[in-house]
């Protein structure tokens, strides 16, 4: 009966722990391995203008569909303006409005995105565009060019490529020259190309965006050509005619509408700044999950202050140490002082590193033990003697630190990080065992403690494990279920297989 309770409890704990883990890992994309950093790009647009006498309304086109990028967050900073997000014909629009404003005004809009190669938002399949109304003599020129390009192309993609080649020809056709006579900027150039494509009944539009790389104090939006081939949108470099999109190209807005429109203001200027940050993948997963409304995130350790996080980073490994302790004591059968002393010793090794930890610990215990035997001659009572050992341990630590500092070995300073109460207790326990059961037993248990401490240190120091436990604290339930099961382990301990070998029946 009781056995079933234990198994049931262990299974319950393991299932709960593992399912929360799987949910966070698979559904919420929490990283299971460490140091998964993601570049997060923050693009800030600032709109400067002089306010007019009346009410002011500012419209800014902002990213809607951003292939290859996922939005982390966006916000706007503007003093006294009402803010709203709307959907216009060209995509999303941010709108600020104020009844009255004085002097030069600045409005900020900021968006943070990160790369997500898998992201392909569904875009609408556009209808065939109506033939544009073009005045003569441009009309004839367009018709001639369309007819000529059609001769040299097979489909939409090759048509576009051929058109771009002709338009970029260094010694252009007179028709091309005529069409481009008004196009002084890249945007106007692309605009005229979309007009020609529309005449050929090919859906095309301009895309404006930024090539994200490093930190750019003032970034200029670059115009690119987007052509729909009946199945998907294709991107063309309007200058080279190659079908590609620059690496890390964030599409800001589409179409030929102006980026910003200010009613009631003048001298409008828009500036862009780009900044790259490296954010832990965990943070992104959390923000993402929070946006999806997964309440499990409210209990994440990453929401704690950084300092507390560091403390828990260590604390959460103690159960791992305890598990190692359980295995080594109940399944292997190693003798050690105290129940959790080795785990606490292992904790202090974290600061001193293993080699120096073992050296300093051994040195301290050896010195303390000899002092303890001296104290024994004074026949002190138990508590005063323990206190005396404690004081001696502190003095010894001080001496070790000073001497090692003199010798230029800074590692010796880390001796101060040892929990001295633990050392004093170890010395006391060891000396009692030494007196009562002899040096061999004391040495064996002392060595056993050290071995357990070293194994626990190695186990608790596994970086991937630490990350795993910290990101998925629910795994502690799995550890707990292991420990509960180990509590009902009635098989032989490993060392018993040697101890009882005389009884093996051979």
């Amino acid at each position, binding site marked *: 009966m009781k056995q079933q309770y234990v198994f049931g409890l262990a299974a319950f704990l393991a299932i709960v722990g593992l399912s929360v883990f799987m949910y966070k890992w698979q559904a919420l994309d929490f990283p299971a391995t460490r140091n998964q950093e993601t570049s997060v790009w923050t693009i800030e647009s600032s709109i400067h203008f002089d306010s007019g006498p009346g009410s002011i309304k500012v419209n800014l086109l902002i990213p809607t569909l951003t292939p290859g990028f996922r939005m982390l967050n966006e916000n706007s900073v503007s003093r006294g303006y009402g803010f709203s997000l709307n959907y216009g014909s060209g995509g999303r629009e941010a709108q600020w409005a104020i009844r009255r404003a004085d002097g030069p005004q600045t409005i900020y809009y900021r968006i943070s995105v990160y790369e997500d190669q898998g992201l392909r938002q569904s875009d609408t399949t556009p209808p065939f565009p109506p033939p544009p109304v073009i005045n003569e003599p441009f009309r004839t020129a367009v018709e001639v060019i369309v007819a000529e390009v059609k001769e040299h192309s097979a489909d939409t993609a090759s048509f576009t490529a051929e058109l771009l080649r002709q338009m970029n020809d260094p010694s252009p056709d007179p028709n091309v020259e005529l069409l481009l006579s008004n196009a002084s900027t890249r945007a106007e150039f692309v605009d005229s190309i979309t007009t020609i494509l529309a005449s050929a009944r090919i859906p095309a539009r301009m895309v404006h965006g930024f090539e994200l790389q490093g930190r750019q104090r003032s970034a200029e939006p670059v115009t690119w050509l987007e052509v729909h081939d009946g199945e998907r949108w294709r991107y063309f470099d309007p200058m080279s005619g190659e079908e590609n999109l620059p690496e890390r190209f964030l599409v800001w807005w589409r179409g030929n509408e102006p980026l910003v429109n200010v009613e009631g203001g003048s001298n409008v200027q828009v500036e862009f700044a780009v900044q790259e940050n490296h954010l832990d993948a965990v943070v992104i997963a959390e923000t993402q999950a929070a946006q999806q409304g997964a309440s499990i995130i409210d209990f994440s350790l990453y929401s704690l202050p950084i300092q507390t996080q560091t403390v828990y980073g260590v604390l959460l490994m103690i159960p791992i140490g305890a598990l190692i302790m359980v295995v080594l004591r109940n399944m292997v059968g190693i003798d050690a002082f105290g129940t959790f002393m080795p785990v606490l010793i292992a904790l202090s090794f974290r600061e001193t590193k293993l080699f120096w930890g073992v050296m300093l610990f051994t040195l301290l215990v050896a010195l303390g033990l000899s002092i303890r035997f001296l104290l024994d001659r004074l*026949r002190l*009572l*138990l508590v005063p003697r323990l206190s005396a050992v404690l004081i001696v341990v502190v003095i010894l630590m001080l001496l070790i630190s000073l001497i090692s500092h003199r010798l230029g070995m800074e590692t010796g300073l880390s001796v101060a990080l040892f929990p001295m109460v633990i050392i004093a207790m170890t010395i006391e326990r060891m000396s009692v065992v030494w007196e009562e059961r002899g040096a061999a037993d004391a040495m064996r248990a002392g060595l056993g403690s050290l071995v357990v401490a070293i194994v626990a240190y190695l186990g608790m120091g596994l970086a991937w494990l630490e990350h795993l436990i910290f990101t998925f604290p629910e795994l502690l339930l799995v550890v707990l279920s292991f420990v509960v099961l180990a509590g009902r382990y*009635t098989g*032989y301990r490993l060392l018993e*297989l040697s*101890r*009882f070998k005389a009884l093996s*029946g051979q």
Partner: protein
Amino acid sequence: MKFVRAQDLREAGVLGVNQRNCDFIMRLNPRSLYPRVDDKVITKGLALAAGMAVPELYGIISNQGEVHAFGDIVADRQSFVIKPAQGSGGDGILVITGRSKRKRELFRLSSGVLISRGEIAHHISNIVGGQYSLSGNRDKALIEYCVNFDPVFTELSYQGVPDIRVIVYRGYPAMAMVRLPTRASDGKANLHQGAVGAGVDMSLGQTLTGVLDDEIVDEHPDTGALVSGLQIPHWDFILQTAARGYEVTELGYLGVDMVIDKDLGPMILEMNARPGLNIQIANCEGLSKRVARIDEIFDRDTSPEKRASIARREFPAERQTSIHFDQ
């Protein structure tokens, strides 16, 4: 270090520490009953009330202020034993076997070493302070009669008092061994301190081979005497007394430690709620099979005498003679 297969041990019926703790101690020995065996003052009281023989108690020192009363308690007695009431594994026991002829303040330990009254007082202070108690709490020091052990064991012990450990499972004596002090064990009869444990044929009350540090031995390491074949006197009485330990303590898995005094016969020295497992090596036999047999024949209403005779009938030694001659 040589290892054997777990399966071989299981077939031999060897009981492991984990199984002992989990299936026997936790199931059969409720925590609330522990003080009956962990505190020797209580054990002594219960045993006396049940009419069992125990070493006479000279006095108890229960706090630091009473340590000086030690002299009054001892008075002119030549020999006595000082032990912590809640000690474990024989730690903290001081056996005084005599006094210096010229200086009365000097006491002779069982090893022959002389120690002063001040050193004894310090030892008592340590006991009272809790150095040897299981929990580390304050403790009491018992000063009691020093057993004048039966000469039957003289050849087989190096100083100290040999004792007989009987494992009593649900009231039935299941296995026994004689624990023989050695020089290494400093006169103490605890196996982990280096004493020799000799298995006992339950039906005959005769010693079998011995175990020293988990190894089987034929001879006492100090005296060289043959360990096996020694007839233990008062065997019936010893088994009955051990069986009665179950009524006294109500512990289902119990170790009863007894000594045989030359004049007073077998006496209970102490009882143990977590007896060790080396007794299996000493007897060359696992406990599990005997325990299973006791579970089969268990009858709540049997008297201790009946249970002792059942143990004699059921558990004759099987393998020891052959092993003895093989080696």
